[in-house]
């Protein structure tokens, strides 16, 4: 009998670093050079099998453009895993990882598994961010560092597997309860509500935000 466990993943990073290409490479096994920029955020779901456990991941692939920044908190709220992606040929995208980390830490008060991803490893001739520096930084903030190439399909699967394993390990203390729950009749709804973000509505606040489009926009104006 297999156990099922689910978690929420949010992919953050500057525009053009390859967030959408990464998820499309993993899910569709494809790479499209002419992909158009993501609008808002895209939602994907995928399953990773780790031994006898199926880890279901709900993945939010966010848009990197600054104007969407106001809406990113609703995607990383309740996230278990954050993929922070940068482009190894564009040092400013690596610098900005720090801002994403600060923002995550400032807005999420539960534990988040952080995975830092140096994308476009096939362009090693143009590399501007040394691997050692990225590893040092990642270790410093308690994150794991991976490099990958969505174009050449190098290291992409490993990132998702490692994320799933880390999630399993993190949820271990509750794991037994979880199995009980999964075996009962109510299982699907129970496992959903653990991660379903759709239920958290702060009405008074969200009304204002909708009408005026200003959530955390004070930084960018």
């Amino acid at each position: 009998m297999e156990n099922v466990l689910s978690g929420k993943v949010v992919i953050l990073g500057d525009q053009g670093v390859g967030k959408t290409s990464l998820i499309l490479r993993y899910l569709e096994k494809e790479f499209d050079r002419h992909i158009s920029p993501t609008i808002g955020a895209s939602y994907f779901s995928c399953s990773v099998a780790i031994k006898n456990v199926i880890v279901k991941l709900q993945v939010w692939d966010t848009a990197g453009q600054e104007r969407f920044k106001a809406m990113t908190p609703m995607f990383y709220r309740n996230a278990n895993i954050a993929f922070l992606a940068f482009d190894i040929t564009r040092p400013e995208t690596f610098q900005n990882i720090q801002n994403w980390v600060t923002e995550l830490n400032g807005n999420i008060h539960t534990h988040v598994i952080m995975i830092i991803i140096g994308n476009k490893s096939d362009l090693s001739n143009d590399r501007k961010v040394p691997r050692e520096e990225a590893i040092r930084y990642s270790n410093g903030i308690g994150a794991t560092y991976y490099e990958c190439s969505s174009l050449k399909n190098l290291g992409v699967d490993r990132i998702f597997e490692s994320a799933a394993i880390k999630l399993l390990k993190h949820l271990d203390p509750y794991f037994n309860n979880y199995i009980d729950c999964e075996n009962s009749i109510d299982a699907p709804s129970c496992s959903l509500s653990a991660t379903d973000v759709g239920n958290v509505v702060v009405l008074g606040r969200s009304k204002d935000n909708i009408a005026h489009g200003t959530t955390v926009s004070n930084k960018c104006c």
Partner: protein
Amino acid sequence: MASNCEVEPGAAPESALVTTDSYENFQQMSSSLEEIKNSNFTSSTQDEFLDNCNNIDSDLHVNCSTVSVSSQDEDYIRDEEWLGKSKHIFVLSSAGKPIYSRYGNEDRFASYFGIMQALVSFVQADDDSIRSMHAGDTKFVFLFREPLILVAVSKTEECTSQLTAQLNYVFNQIASMLTLSRLVKIYEQRRNYDLRRLLTGVERLIDHLLDFSEQEPAFTLGAVQCLPLTSSVRDAISSAIVQSCSKIKNLVFGILLANNQLITLVRMKKYCIHPHDLHLIFNLVQASESLKTAEIWTPLCLPRFDASGFLYGHVSYLAEDCQACLLLLTVERDAFFSLSEAKQRIVERLRRGNCLEAINESLNTKEETCVDIGFPELRHYLYKCKSTAQFHQPSMGAPYTINCKRLLDLYRRAHYRLHCPTRPLKLLFERTSEDALLAWDTRGFELYAILEPLTDTGNAIATVGRLLNWIKKREDKLFQLNAPTF
């Protein structure tokens, strides 16, 4: 001919689209997001944004045909290709900062932007506003929509009001990404702000919008075209959407479209969508390939609906085997999962009711040309029903399959003649060596028909009469005649 006025194919007592005269600049908005969330709340109007629609018309006529520009931009002045473009579009902030140029890198001709800004503020100093300048066959059209200045430099045949309408679309495209309130606020806080930071990726949408509006008669007419479907299928699709979303609060619009044609539009009671907003949605869907790979959740402002805030849209294609795009627009920013489930229910219902096949069949059927439907003397036509803001056109036949630009130019000119603010015509018949054109504006519809050049007046009128009856017989297939609500 008078009797045909009564036919009015496609007319319906209720419309989901705001009926419109496409030359108006900025209609006062009837809807408010606050109101939807809070039905007791009455919204205040936003006069400050609307003020500049009422500017006095002041057209400057300039005799010189060249404008001298400082030497730092010489590379563009000497660039034959850049100079040869028939229509340039520029967007700048009211402080003169470059934001967008249709061709070339806007940073490389900062001094052009300086001149544009100077012209606008010079005329403004006298409490007036510059509308256009005419130099030879080149028109310089200005639109000042606080806090942005938009300029078209055109050698095309389009008239000033049509160019202004196009600039309005560009402005609304920008507003739909940021909301007008945020745009105004940004410049209140920092007059020198470089807006391009917030608009990365939007230049693609503007480029696409400009090409799109030059190729699609929908923009000239201020109307949308429906995908031909029998009324029972269209009703089944609408009710699948209504039933699947019945428990969802604050859903404002459900829009299903395919191939630039509307399949159905379901709306919240009391609210209508403006065709211009719908054009921006069509543009977004058409310009964004990335929508095909996943479900998207995005904020979207519909400037004609409510320019002050965002709606949130769940955007997805129905299925791998049915390339129709569904948009569910709500005021709730956290409604993604309930809308995602609703979408699944909609697709299941449509599949059970064989509606997906019906949509595919209509998408794969080549529209008939005028010759196919038994009008050999008629080459092409546009029929717009005013009460529903929908239009219909046949498939492009010879000789316009090769020169479709000529056809669109003819329509644009005729549309202007019927809507010219000083002397609007009700009926127009024109014959050249290449084609004959009959344009007719009645209370219920507008009809533009292009005929063989040898057609005489009597034949043209007889043909148009037959055509109206032909459309009337098929009106329930060619138009959405009801306006379903959630």
